[in-house]
C-alpha cells in the first residue's frame, strides 16, 4: 500500500511535546488514513513558518505570536488544531524564595528565554493585569533556555523566569525545585498548535481530514494512563534517547498530557475558542510584537474539521 | 687601444638579433638609477659578455633584455620587435638556481618542455635531459630533490634546464659561479660548442675576466653608479677558442686591458 508522506515541522526536537502524533504514528493510526508522517525539528517558530511557507512541510507547529505576525506578513494559512489548549508558559521562581504571587515580583528581574518571544508577551500580560509597568516596576532579562536559565538563577541574575511549561518541568525534574506563580486566568494563553497553508486545505482536504482523525485518536490514546508503556514506546520510535531515563520521561509525559487536554472536552480535541485568540491578540498588540491588529481574527483559524475528526472516537 | 676598435671577426653579414638603444632603468622604490644609456647590438650567432663590478646593473640589464622588467627609458628590440614580455626563443639563466623543491632534479630540468609541450614531450625528452645531466656531471641525481643537491649541482641543473629547449638566444647570469675551475673550464668549452653548433646568440654575465675573454666576440665592460657600458672590447681570437689560448700573449693583453678598465671603474 502506498502511503502519502506528510511532513510535520516542529520547533523543538522533543517527541514528548507532540506525543499524540508520536502515538498515532506508532499505533498505525496515520497508516490507517493512508498517511506516513515525518517529523522534522527546527529551532523555534520563525524557521518553522518559513519551512511551511517554502513548501518544505505540510503542517507546522508554531506559537501564536509568530503565527499572527506571519499572517500579517501575508502568510495564507490556518491554525487548525489547538495542540496545547492550556498555557504552555508559566512564571516560575525558586521554591526557596518568598515570592508567592506575581505582585511580589515588583522591582525584580524576570528572566525570559529567547526561544519564541512568546513567553515575554505572556509574562507582560500577567504584569499588565496587576498594573506593573515594564522597566519601571520590573525588568526582563534575556537569558536563553535550559542551562542558561539555570545559570541565571544560580548566579542570582534573575528572580523569576518566564518559561515554556516543559522547560520549567524539566528544570524541576532535574532537581532545581521551582514554584509556579502563573495565575489561573492565564491558562487561556494556549501554546503551540497545528497550522496548514490555505492552499493545502483547498487542494487536499482529505489529507487534513485524515491527519486530524489519526491525531485525535492519538490524543485520546495518550490521555489514557494505562497506555503509558505504548506512549513511551511511541516516543522511543522517534527519539529513543528521550525515554532512556524512564522515570523522567513518565513524569514529563504526565505533565504534557494535562497541558494538552482541552478545558471543555465536549467541544472535542483541537477545538479553538475565539476568546483565547482575542486574549493573545490583545497581548501581542500591547507588547508591540504585533505591529498592526488582525482585521478579522476568525480568518486565522478554523474549527471546520473538528467535528469530523472527533467523530472517529464515537465509532 | 687598438684591440677595441678593430672590426668584428664574425661573418660581417650577420643580422642583428638584439638591439638595445639608450636603455635606462630607475628603481622607483629607492630612486636608484640602475642603468643609464646602455646601447648594445648583438649580431646573430655572436657570443658577448658583460663584466662589471657587483651591483653595477648586470642582472638588471639581463632582466630587461628578457622582458622581465620594463626599461624606464630607451628601447629593447629582439629581431626587430620590441621586447615587452618574455619570449619563448629566449633561454634565461638566473643568478640563483631556483629549482622547484617539489620536483626531482630531472623533472626540474624537463620543466620547460613539460610546460610548453606537455607531459608526453617531457617524457620523450628524458633521454636528452639525462644526456645533459651527464654532460654537466650530475648524472645519478635524477631522482634527488633540490634540497639534496649541493650549491654547484643545483646550478648545473639550472643550466640543463635552460639548454634543454635549445633556445636561439641565451641570457646567462653568472651561470658557473658555484663551480670549481675544472668543471667551469669544461662547461665553458661545452657552452661554446653548443652555441656554435646551434648558431645561438649568447649574452653572458660573468665575474671572471678570463672567462669573458675566452668565450666572447665582444666584452662589454660596465661601471657602476649609474650602471653604464664604458667600453666594448672586441676579442679577435679565432674560433673555436681553446683553453690553450689562455696562454696566448694577446689573451693576456685583453685580460689586463679589461682589468684596468674595471679597476678604473671601481675607483670612480
Amino acid at each position, binding site marked *: 500500500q502506498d502511503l502519502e508522506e506528510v511532513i510535520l515541522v516542529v520547533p523543538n526536537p522533543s517527541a514528548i511535546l507532540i506525543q499524540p502524533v508520536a502515538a498515532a504514528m506508532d499505533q498505525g493510526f496515520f497508516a490507517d488514513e493512508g498517511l506516513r508522517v515525518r517529523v522534522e525539528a527546527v529551532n523555534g517558530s*520563525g524557521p518553522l*513558518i518559513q519551512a511551511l511557507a517554502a513548501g518544505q512541510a505540510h503542517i507546522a507547529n508554531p506559537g501564536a505570536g509568530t503565527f499572527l505576525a506571519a499572517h500579517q506578513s501575508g502568510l495564507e494559512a490556518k491554525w487548525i488544531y489547538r495542540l496545547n489548549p492550556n498555557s504552555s508558559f508559566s512564571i516560575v521562581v525558586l521554591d526557596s524564595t518568598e515570592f508567592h504571587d506575581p505582585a511580589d515580583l515588583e522591582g525584580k528581574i524576570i528572566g525570559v528565554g529567547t526561544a519564541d*518571544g512568546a513567553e515575554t508577551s505572556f509574562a507582560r500580560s500577567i504584569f499588565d493585569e496587576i498594573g506593573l509597568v515594564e522597566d519601571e516596576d520590573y525588568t526582563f532579562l*534575556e*537569558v536563553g533556555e535550559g542551562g542558561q536559565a539555570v545559570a541565571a538563577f544560580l548566579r542570582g541574575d534573575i528572580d523569576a523566569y518566564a518559561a515554556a511549561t516543559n522547560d520549567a518541568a524539566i528544570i524541576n525534574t532535574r532537581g532545581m525545585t521551582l514554584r509556579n506563580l502563573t495565575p489561573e486566568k492565564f491558562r487561556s494563553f494556549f501554546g503551540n498548535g497545528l497550522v496548514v497553508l490555505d492552499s493545502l486545505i483547498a487542494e487536499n482536504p482529505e489529507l487534513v481530514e485524515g491527519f486530524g482523525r489519526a491525531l485525535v485518536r492519538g490524543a485520546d490514546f495518550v490521555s489514557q494512563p494505562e497506555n503509558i508503556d505504548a506512549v513511551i514506546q511511541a516516543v522511543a520510535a522517534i527519539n529513543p534517547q528521550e525515554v532512556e531515563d524512564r522515570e523522567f520521561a513518565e513524569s514529563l509525559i504526565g505533565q504534557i498530557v494535562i497541558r494538552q487536554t482541552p478545558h471543555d472536552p465536549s467541544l472535542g480535541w483541537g477545538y479553538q475558542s475565539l476568546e483565547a485568540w482575542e486574549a493573545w491578540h490583545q497581548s501581542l498588540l500591547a507588547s508591540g510584537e504585533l505591529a498592526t491588529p488582525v482585521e478579522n481574527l476568525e480568518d486565522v483559524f478554523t474549527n471546520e474539521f473538528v467535528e469530523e475528526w472527533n467523530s472517529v472516537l464515537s465509532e | 687601444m687598438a684591440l677595441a676598435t678593430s672590426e668584428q671577426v664574425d661573418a660581417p653579414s650577420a643580422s642583428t638579433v638584439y638591439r638595445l638603444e639608450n636603455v635606462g632603468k630607475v628603481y622607483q622604490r*629607492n630612486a636608484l638609477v640602475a642603468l643609464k644609456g646602455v646601447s648594445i647590438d648583438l649580431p646573430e650567432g655572436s657570443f658577448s659578455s658583460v663584466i662589471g663590478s657587483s651591483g653595477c646593473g648586470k642582472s638588471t640589464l639581463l632582466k630587461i633584455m628578457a622582458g*622581465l622588467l620594463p626599461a*624606464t627609458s630607451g628601447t629593447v628590440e629582439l629581431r626587430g620587435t620590441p621586447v615587452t*614580455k618574455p619570449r619563448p626563443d629566449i633561454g634565461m639563466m638566473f643568478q640563483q638556481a631556483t629549482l622547484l623543491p617539489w620536483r626531482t632534479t630531472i623533472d626540474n630540468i624537463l620543466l620547460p618542455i613539460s610546460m610548453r609541450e606537455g607531459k608526453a614531450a617531457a617524457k620523450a625528452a628524458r633521454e636528452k635531459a639525462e644526456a645533459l645531466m651527464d654532460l654537466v656531471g650530475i648524472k645519478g641525481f635524477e631522482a634527488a630533490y633540490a634540497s639534496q643537491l649541493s650549491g654547484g649541482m643545483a646550478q648545473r641543473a639550472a643550466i640543463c634546464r635552460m639548454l634543454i629547449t635549445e633556445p636561439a638566444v641565451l641570457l646567462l647570469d653568472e651561470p658557473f659561479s658555484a663551480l670549481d675551475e675544472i668543471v667551469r673550464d669544461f662547461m665553458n668549452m661545452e657552452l661554446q660548442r653548443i652555441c656554435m653548433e646551434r648558431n645561438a646568440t649568447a649574452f653572458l654575465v660573468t665575474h671572471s675576466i678570463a672567462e669573458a675573454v675566452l668565450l666572447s666576440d665582444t666584452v662589454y665592460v660596465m661601471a657602476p653608479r649609474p650602471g653604464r657600458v664604458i667600453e666594448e672590447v672586441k676579442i679577435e681570437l679565432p674560433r673555436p677558442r681553446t683553453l690553450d689560448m689562455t696562454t696566448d700573449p694577446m689573451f693576456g693583453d685583453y685580460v689586463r686591458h679589461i682589468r684596468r678598465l674595471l679597476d678604473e671603474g671601481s675607483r670612480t
Partner: protein
Amino acid sequence: MTVEAAEQSAPIADHGDGPTLFDRIPQPVSILGFGAAIVLLWYLVTASGIVSPLILPTPLQTLNQLITVGANLFTGGYVLSAMWITTQEVLWGFAIAVVVGILLGILVSETRFGERAVMPYLVALDTMPKIAFAPLFVAWFGFSIESKIALAVYVSLFPVIVGTAAGVRSADENSLMLFRTMGVSRLKTLIHLKIPAGLPQIFTGLKIASLSVMAGAITAEFLGGGKGVGELIRIAATQLDTARVFALIIYLSLLGVALFGFVTVLERYVVFWRNSDPGRE
C-alpha cells in the same frame, strides 16, 4: 610620473599578460557593478515567486528597512547602542583571540609537549559545538558582554592557533642554520626569525579569525540575551520581519568587512617585504 606608471603597470610579480579588460575597471565601479548584478539576481528570484518573502525579502523591502534601520543607527537610536555593544564584543574577542591564539600557536609548534599533548585537546575542543558551552560561559561570566566575548574568543581562537603554528614552522632551513650558528636562544630565534618569517601565515589565521569572531559574538547574543545586534536580529526573526533581519545583517556585515579590511591593510604594512608596494619605505 610616466616612469612610475610604467613600473606599476607591470610589477615583477605580475603575469606576463598585462591587464585584462576587467582590470581596467576602477575598483569602486567593479564592486558596485558586481553588487548590482547580485541585487538584480536577488530581485529576479523574489519577483519570480520561487521564494516566499517570509524567507527572502525583496530588495526593495530590504532597502526600506535599510533606511529605517540606518536612520535609527545614525541618529543614535537603539540600533546604534546595540551596534556599539556588538562592536565591543567583537573587538575584545578579537584582541583576546589574537593574543591567546598566537601564544598557544607558538606553544603548539615550538614544544613537542604542546604538539603532542596540547594540540589534540585543542583540536577536540574546537570541533565541539560551541553552543553547548554557552551556559558554562554564562555561569562564569554572566549575561553581560563578558560571556559573549568568551564565546567569540572560543570561536575565533583556532584559526589563529593553526595559522601561527604553521607560520612559525615555515622559516627556511638556511635562516634557521644562520641563527643556530649565531648561538641565538630559542626564544630569540622565535621572536626574531620564526615569527617574522611566519607572519604571512599568521595573518591568514588572523583574517579568518576576524570573521569568525563576528559569528561568535552574534551566536552568543542569540543564545544568551544581552542588548546587541544579535538580539535585534532575533526579535525581527521571531516576528518574521525578514527584511528587517536582512537590513540588520547588512549593517552588521559592514562591521565585519571593516575588521577584515583593517587586518588586510595591517598585513600589507607589517609584511611589507612580501609585496611590491613601497610599504614602509
